[in-house]
């Protein structure tokens, strides 16, 4: 069981995420979509930001997360130890985010922020799909 996180801290984290997306947009003109950035970095994207820009953004993610762990709060990471599950999940996330042109950041944070119908529907779909998957794994089969 996880300790509760105060809503104010969660909202502050969200503002930081959205603020970072704003900064990226206003300074470089690019949408902060992590799946697209990763695809650019490994050179399998047909379109997208320049390689250096994407690489700099992607490298920044663990640096920022590490800084918070060092100076604010050490996260109590809990994650499955099943290798097959991790592999299947990774394949689905990689394939799905490219087919759907975005993930929680590009569609969820940036797309909803500009009220794009595509992004609103994509976010509703992956939320519903995620909720259904958790329901099946936690309450129907696994438990």
């Amino acid at each position, binding site marked *: 069981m996880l300790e509760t996180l105060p809503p104010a*801290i969660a*909202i*502050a*984290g*969200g503002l*930081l*995420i*959205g603020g*970072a997306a*704003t*900064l*990226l947009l*206003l*300074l*470089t*003109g*690019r949408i*902060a979509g992590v799946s*697209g950035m990763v*695809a650019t970095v490994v050179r399998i994207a047909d*379109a997208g*930001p320049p390689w250096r*820009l994407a690489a*700099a953004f992607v*490298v*920044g*993610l*663990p640096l*920022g*997360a*590490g*800084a918070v762990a060092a100076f604010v709060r050490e*996260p109590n990471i809990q*994650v499955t130890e099943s290798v097959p*599950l991790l592999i*299947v*999940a*990774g394949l*689905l*996330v*990689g394939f*799905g*985010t*490219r*087919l*759907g*042109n*975005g993930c*929680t*950041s590009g569609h*969820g944070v940036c797309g*909803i*922020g*500009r009220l794009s119908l595509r992004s609103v529907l994509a976010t509703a*779909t*992956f*939320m519903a799909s995620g909720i*259904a998957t958790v329901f099946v*794994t*936690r309450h129907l089969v696994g438990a």
Partner: protein
Amino acid sequence: MLRASVPALIAGVLFGAGLALGDMVNPARVLGFLDIAGAWDPVLAFVMGGAVLASAVGYLFSRRLRQPLFGRSFFIPENRRPDTPLIAGAALFGMGWGLVGFCPGPAIAGLVYGKWQAWVFVASMIVGMGLQRLAAARPAARQSSPADA
């Protein structure tokens, strides 16, 4: 180009810091939000709310600018019409997300915590991205879908 890399690095650091502050780097926290039939954890909703609000302000502000500070133009997707690949892709992504609790941003940010699971996940995710590209390159499956993100 180097000029744009520095702001991108700073944005990446802040983005990763926000993910960690809101505990989105923790798969158990994410699964707690998706588990509406169990002990529901609202943290993801608060993080998402704050993030959407701040990104909306940024988007509205960008519309008043002719060009970004370190670039020639804004690259904002103009296509807003949903199509089948969008919904199919989002549904597959949601399945993978719900299986483990990782999505791309938190998984990459979480590489710093020394958990082997994040590395296995990210490696598989990149393979999945490559498989999608291979599938899309097959003439029978070719379908144009402009990028959103």
